[in-house]
């Protein structure tokens, strides 16, 4: 059963240009995604594709000038903003991307203990720190005294001690060494296996492949493909969307070959398919309207040419 479901989420930002001229920028359009019980859903895609925005929308922590439409369902029930806010920290744990989310004026051990709701918080915090190879002296340190990797491990610990049903992890692994990454990923897997769920936002496709069940690929504020992990293999023949294929081929462990161009700017999106300007399969029809999401071979794709 879907424990958390996002339906037709659109986000736009209202900005002031020069003087009092207002401008609305659509940063996400009609995005739908489901998080199943016992499942790890990895979200990959380029920076600026809206991965973090989705996480922030699910936690209701978008900035004030953001307008959203669409609905979020938790255990089948639609949520209001107030209910959503009540869930976070209890049912929903968040591992933010930036280590600046730590309180600069509180010892990190105390910060981690705060997110534990039941049981012995001190004991839990110590065992989690040990599991992430953080020495005993670290709990008394302040964030500015930590290295980048240590701060990130502290963020991971806050989610690990909580009793949440869902972890939303936004890029939890960059800058960490292999041993700690493996440890963190194993913890996510164990967490999900207890009939809970993890949404793992990452651009480390290699790491996502080892633990995730499904991978959703983002491009310019929309989901272009959702595929089971097994499809990410070989030369990417089983993948559906041309962007996913290009992403797969660009990995250092594969061909390491880039495609030209860059993701379009959100203020200047193409009218048709968002990937069309860079796509080898582009035809006249691609530039007319945005392709709809359709089911294809046990996954979903937003491309009229995909087979």
């Amino acid at each position, binding site marked *: 059963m879907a424990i958390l479901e996002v339906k037709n989420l659109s986000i736009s930002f209202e900005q002031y240009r020069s003087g009092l001229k207002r401008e609305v920028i659509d940063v996400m359009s009609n995005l739908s995604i489901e998080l199943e019980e016992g499942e790890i859903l990895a979200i*990959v*895609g*380029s*920076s*600026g*594709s809206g991965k973090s925005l989705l996480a922030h929308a699910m936690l209701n922590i978008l900035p004030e000038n953001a307008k959203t439409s669409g609905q979020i369902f938790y255990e089948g029930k639609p949520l209001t903003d107030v209910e959503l806010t009540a869930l976070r920290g209890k049912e929903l744990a968040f591992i933010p991307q930036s280590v600046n989310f730590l309180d600069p004026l509180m010892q990190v051990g105390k910060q981690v203990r705060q997110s534990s709701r039941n049981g012995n918080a001190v004991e839990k915090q110590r065992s989690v720190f040990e599991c992430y190879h953080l020495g005993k002296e670290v709990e008394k340190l302040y964030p500015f005294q930590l*290295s*980048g*990797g*240590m701060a990130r491990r502290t963020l991971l610990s806050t989610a690990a001690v909580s009793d949440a049903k869902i972890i939303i992890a936004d*890029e939890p692994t*960059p*800058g*960490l*060494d*292999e*041993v*700690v*990454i493996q440890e963190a990923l194993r913890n996510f897997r164990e967490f999900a296996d207890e009939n809970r769920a993890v949404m793992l936002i990452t*651009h*480390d*496709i*290699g790491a996502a492949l080892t633990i995730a069940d499904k991978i959703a690929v983002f491009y310019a504020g929309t989901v272009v493909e959702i595929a089971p992990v097994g499809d990410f293999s070989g030369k990417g023949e089983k993948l559906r969307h041309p962007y996913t294929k*290009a*992403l*797969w081929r*660009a*990995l*250092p*462990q594969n061909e*390491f*070959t*880039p*495609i*030209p*161009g*860059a*993701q379009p700017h959100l203020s200047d999106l193409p009218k048709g398919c968002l990937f069309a300007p860079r796509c080898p399969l582009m035809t006249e029809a691609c530039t007319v309207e945005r392709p709809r999401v359709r089911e294809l071979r046990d996954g979903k794709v937003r491309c009229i040419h995909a087979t």
Partner: protein
Amino acid sequence: MRLEAKGIGFKYEKGPWLFRDVNFHVEAGEVVGITGASGRGKTTFCRILAGFERALEGEILLDGQKILPKGMHPVQLVLQHPEQAVNPRWKMRKVLEESGTFDENIQRLLGIEKEWLSRWPGELSGGELQRFCVARAISASPKFLIADEMTTMLDAITQAQIWQAVLETAKERNMGIIVVSHERKLMERLCDRIVEL
């Protein structure tokens, strides 16, 4: 051309030694990776190599000579977060011109579009900004480039784009590269040899 670190030791104020007696060298045209657990001082070591920090022990030599503290430093460093490496009040053209040169060929290689030059840093994504930081670092022809987690925050396609451009330029100019990264597969793809700090 050979960049050499001899018996480098460093600590922050009254803290314990971060590392001592570190020896390291890179030849021109060579790509060397540095790995090590987080908190081991990889970034600090890079900062010492690039002249941002002074070692408390040991010395950095370029072809056996000390590097003079004037003019452009022959060892250039590109960091993980481009947002922190550009002046937010300068337009991108000025950011590039900071290096003293304006190499259109490198901009083309890195996929920097003409239209981006008239934008403010806040109007570009991390991947786009990082292209500018790389262009700024290599267009004045440094002898060595240090890439400290240079593409960690970027997606695979942008990562491949930037690295292909850097490798091509390095080959052309016989520039040495030092790569710091936690991504083993990227290191294996790029490096001639990998050392652990």
